[in-house]
């Protein structure tokens, strides 16, 4: 394959990664923005979403679309509910102290991950996509016979991958509407802006916190359900999304949703593209070092205004 088609293929893979990453990172960013805590267990909520999707899909059986749609509804709700319980049982009791919360969520990370190992087991299992037809993509060149369009071998995507991108865009728009147009979004933004004043105005801050924590975890689970037909469910799959979400949220500026989206696009695309052309490990080394240095020299992130 020539460089052009190859780059297009890499960008398409990158776009799938970026859309899932945007949803996952948005969850982390919301939790940080509103509650000012870092949720290290975020990747495990992602993994839990994928594992539950597998359970639901294999329970329902029959038409793959049915199981997939059921998983799309059930997994985020279950994971969100679990996160709310965790918030009530643990985070609320440490009074959302930032450092205690990190240690507590590290504990949750191991509890969730190991519980998945005990119940779901060490195997990687796929979920069947609801539809999965191969779509060949045309490419053009100016050859000897002038402009021509042809289908290079290997340049193709699947209808499901395009669906993932579209679904992520729709969901992101939905979240934007929820945050900027609904009463709930207003409560969240008020809490984020000034917790004490929000409380003084009668906003049940602790309930908003629980809800946001559950919502953030639900978003991670939703992203996982979307990706699990492409990438199999495995109990250790939470590490990468956690690392990438951290990178995105920090580059985008902690708590800045717009920055998170821009950074997710940037990191998701470049991760996809760099991984195709260079070693994925090298791509990750560069990204983690970059993030550490951004935090050191520009703690407000590349796009954000608030310092950590």
């Amino acid at each position: 394959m020539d460089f052009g088609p190859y780059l297009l293929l890499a960008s398409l893979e990158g776009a799938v990664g970026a859309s899932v990453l945007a949803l996952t990172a948005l969850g982390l960013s919301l939790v940080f923005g509103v509650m000012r805590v870092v949720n290290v267990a975020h990747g495990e909520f992602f993994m839990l979403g994928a594992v539950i999707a597998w359970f639901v899909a294999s329970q329902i059986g029959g038409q793959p679309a049915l199981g997939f749609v059921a998983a799309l509804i059930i997994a985020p709700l279950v994971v969100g509910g679990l996160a709310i319980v965790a918030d009530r049982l643990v985070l609320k009791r440490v009074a959302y102290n930032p450092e205690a919360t990190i240690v507590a969520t590290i504990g949750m990370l191991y509890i969730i991950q190991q519980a998945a190992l005990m119940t779901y087991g060490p195997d990687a299992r796929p979920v069947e996509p609801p539809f999965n037809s191969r779509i060949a993509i045309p490419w053009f060149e100016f050859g000897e016979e002038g402009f021509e369009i042809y289908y290079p071998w290997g340049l193709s995507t699947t209808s499901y991958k395009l669906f993932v991108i579209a679904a992520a865009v729709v969901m992101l728009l939905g979240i934007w509407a929820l945050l900027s147009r609904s009463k709930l979004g207003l409560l969240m933004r008020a809490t984020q802006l000034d917790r004490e004043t929000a409380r003084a105005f009668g906003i049940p801050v602790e309930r908003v916190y629980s809800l946001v924590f559950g919502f953030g975890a639900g978003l991670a689970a939703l992203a996982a359900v979307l990706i699990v037909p492409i990438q199999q469910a495995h109990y250790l799959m939470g590490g990468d999304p956690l690392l990438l979400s951290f990178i995105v949220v920090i580059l985008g500026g902690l708590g800045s949703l717009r920055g998170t989206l821009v950074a997710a696009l940037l990191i998701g695309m470049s991760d996809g593209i760099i991984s195709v052309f260079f070693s994925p490990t090298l791509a990750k080394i560069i990204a983690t070092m970059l993030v550490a240095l951004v935090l050191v020299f520009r703690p407000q992130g590349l796009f954000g205004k608030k310092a950590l």
Partner: protein
Amino acid sequence: MSGAKKSLLLHLGLIAILFALGFLLPVYHQGNLARILVLATYAIGYNVLFGYTGLLSLGHAMFFSAGMYGLGLAMHHGGVPAVPAFVIGVIASALLSAAVAVLALRTLGVAFMIVTLMFAQAGFLTILYFGAWTRGDEGFVLPQAVREVAGLDLTDPMTRYMTALLLFSAALLVTARMMQMRFGNVLVAVRENEERTTMLGYDVFKHKFVAVVISGTLSGAAGAAYGLLFGYVGATFASVQYSIFPLLWVLLGGAGTTIGPLVGAFFTFYLIDYASSLTSAYMLIVGLVLVLLILFARAGIMGEVRKRWAGWLP
């Protein structure tokens, strides 16, 4: 008796008991305790930063593995004998911790935790990336023939135990003494109130810098000793898990107490040893203990003992 005398007696008594245990324990537990002593040295290093200075690092595995790989690579590829290789490991971790300190100390609180986590992750990935030399996840074994110092075979259980004890005792006595000196008091002052310490005229950055370097170097010494005594060098020791372990040991044993690191490492080791005989998901224990500690006993075992019965406990 003054506090300083009491604490010296406590530490010497502990070392004497550990020395005696070397002869009394069956080989299996003697081997375990040797491991625990080396890991407790790592925990003592971590405690200097977390317990005394109040800086929570999530990346100490990079210092531990810098020591381990400094020694391991020098022995494996350079054919360097054990003692100089150990020195190389210690120097490697000292240099790394100085570099990390300069950068990471520009941040505070949560940002410090994330920066150290990210640096450690980059270090872990670097070890994987240079798999041709480090053999990545698989790691490499240091053969018995090269693991000897001045004619003493470090693979012999008794020699190994006593070497581990020597390392632990040195780390324990040095840090305990350090905390009685002015420098140690300033570290505690930084932990309690950084701004006030600055206002009193102390150079907070310099003290924190030295604390990171001491902490990282002790961790590196433990890593180098672990590689030397147990003959294996692998990327697992650079993974996030090995940054979480010292946090767990110190939290469980009691942050800011001198013998807490040993107590925490001891209980965690045997707890995990027991749990892994029941299930492959033994890390569940680590998660549960972390959550329970943070909820109910932030002071840890020795911290609670100090609070309830023995206020003089160092």
